[in-house]
């Protein structure tokens, strides 16, 4: 077995061929993998699945609008040090104890290779990705306060997700492997549902998917139902024991699929029900 084909998806996570390829290319080249796609197509789950499939620890760095690139490297807790200096409980000349490693730093110093998920990178400031360029390229950074250089013991497998709320800078993109997760087609969706509900009745599955894709076709919906909503819905269907005959004639529990009140109201008026 070559070292290339490492990732095949997991029992609970079906990855398309193109996605598997992208993941393996990213691992082989040691580059970050940037994943985009509609909400609910499993961007974040991908990192979990890679970690599970390869038996590696997962470190998650959730990005918020206030996150700064430096937060991922380390934080120098000046306020704590200042506070300690007032009361003299600790030796404040040792700056090291006030340096806290961020998620990226944590991934670098780990004794074994880890999977690092940088979730929703587009939430942060526009310049955020640029500030990480060097760190992701060289997999090392310098702590000014202590004069220490933290270098990755093992290059982490970096997965970055984006909802394209902001465009990412070109220089950053050039260094990434990119993959756009498409919404699964019916065939693949069948497979996905089956791994979650192995015993599902054939007719029920067919009917549910038919309804689901018909819903998604309605252009005017504010929020189209996604995979996770479908899975929830099917769970409800199974739990309530709805037969496929009944499902055929009416769309039961539409609230599980559509989360927007206007969408629900519109649906009541249409013939999909």
């Amino acid at each position, binding site marked *: 077995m070559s070292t290339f084909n490492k990732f095949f998806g997991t029992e609970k996570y079906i990855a398309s061929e193109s996605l598997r390829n*992208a993941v393996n290319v990213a691992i082989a080249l040691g580059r970050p993998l940037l994943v985009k796609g509609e909400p609910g197509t499993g961007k974040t789950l991908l990192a979990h699945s890679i970690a599970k499939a390869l038996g590696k620890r997962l470190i998650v760095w959730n990005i918020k609008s206030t996150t700064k690139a430096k937060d991922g490297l380390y934080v120098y807790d000046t*306020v704590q040090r200042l506070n300690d200096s007032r009361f003299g409980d600790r030796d404040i000349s040792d700056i090291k104890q006030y340096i806290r490693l961020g998620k990226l730093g944590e991934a670098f110093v780990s004794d074994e290779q880890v999977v690092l998920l940088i979730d929703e990178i587009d939430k942060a400031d526009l310049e955020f990705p640029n500030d990480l360029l060097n760190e992701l390229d060289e997999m090392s950074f310098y702590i000014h306060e202590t004069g220490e250089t933290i270098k990755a013991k093992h290059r982490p497998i970096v997965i970055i997700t984006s909802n394209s709320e902001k465009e990412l800078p070109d220089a950053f993109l*050039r260094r990434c492997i990119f993959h756009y997760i498409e919404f699964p087609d019916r065939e693949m969706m069948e497979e996905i549902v089956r791994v979650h509900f192995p015993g599902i009745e054939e007719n029920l599955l067919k009917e549910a998917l038919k309804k689901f894709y018909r819903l998604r076709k309605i252009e005017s919906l504010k929020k189209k139902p996604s995979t996770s909503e479908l899975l929830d819905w099917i769970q409800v269907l199974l739990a309530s024991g709805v037969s496929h005959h009944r499902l055929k004639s009416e769309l039961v529990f539409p609230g599980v699929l559509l989360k927007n009140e206007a969408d629900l109201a519109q649906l009541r008026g249409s013939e999909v029900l």
Partner: protein
Amino acid sequence: MRQIWLNCAGARCCEEMFTDFFYILREKGVPVSITEWMTLMEALDKGLADSSLERFYYLARSILVKSESYYDHYDLAFEEYFRKVGDLSQLREELPGSKLVLEIREELLRWLNDPINGINLSEEEIEKLPRMELYELLDLFRRRLAEQTGRHDGGNKWIGTGGTSPFGNAGQNPAGIRVGGVSRGRSAIRMAHQRRYQNLRSDLTLDVRQIKVALKRLRLLARSGPEDELDLEETIDATCKNAGEIELVFTKSRKNIIKLLLLIDVGGSMTPYAQLCSRLFSAANSLSHFKDFRYFYFHNCIYDHLYTDMARRKKFGIREFFRTFDREYRVIIVGDAWMAPSELTNRYGAIDYEDVSETPGIVRLREIREHFDHVVWLNPEKRDIWERKSIAMIREIFPMFELTLDGLDEAVRELVGRR
């Protein structure tokens, strides 16, 4: 079965061969850089394409293309390049006598001619099927179509699905015409050919979310509001001055100071673009990140009034407009700028009675340009017709951009830039 040609030693021969692919990609508008190209070479060198063109399709795409909006451009380039490689005579000229080339060519030809579902037939069976040149096929196709009166599935003659007739969908004839439907094959050129990512192209359409993303970049940060952010530097300074007794200093947080005015042309020739404009409007309106957002309507050109409603009943005088909105406001005018030149240049030239004014429209437009520091004009009409008189005249006054994602991006850049 497939030959290993993409990971030949050192990848040198491949590099030479592929350079054309690089240029075709750029020609099609995929922004590929040398860095990415070298990464692809590195990947090929490591044998990551394995031995299949399909793998290569994904490999090259994940390395070279960084946005789903370029997937379609990539598909076009991929198809063009690899169809060309399939042409033997051209290849001979490029690299005479190279064995590799012959291998590639055979590989490709086999691949192009052999639909995936042909696997069900043996070689001999395939040989037995009638093969025809394209013109023969087309001719026969027309005749069959004329003879055929109904739906047909299976069999070996009529146009339909399945079967071994050269016509129809999902059939097994090695050379044949596919009639609509979904291809069963998943080979790379076919995938490229299907152009599944066509509607992700950013130069074609815009949805609300995309507009929002573009407009979000319309921002200038400045400190304002309550003092609720700890200013570390100042705190340390103050604390030192205070002989070590902690003194906390707070500062105002940074907020967007952009104020936006949206002026929309409604009615007449803008009707086909009403939906596009309303998307732009709802995007701007639902973005809460502007310090102020106001909108007005007009028809064709701006004269003595703007209107606060789409039906153009409630007037808002231009003098008051200038008084209310200072030069800091960023102005986006949306319109096709397409009208009779007289509507721009003549006194009393307005097309609507209500709008008729002594001041020619073009003078008003210049006034608007002068009053505000940043004004852009977004035009939903394609650039090809921008040479038309009235559009050209307005372009002289305002920087004009297409109402596409790319155009919007450029416009936003213009709006936040220094004048």
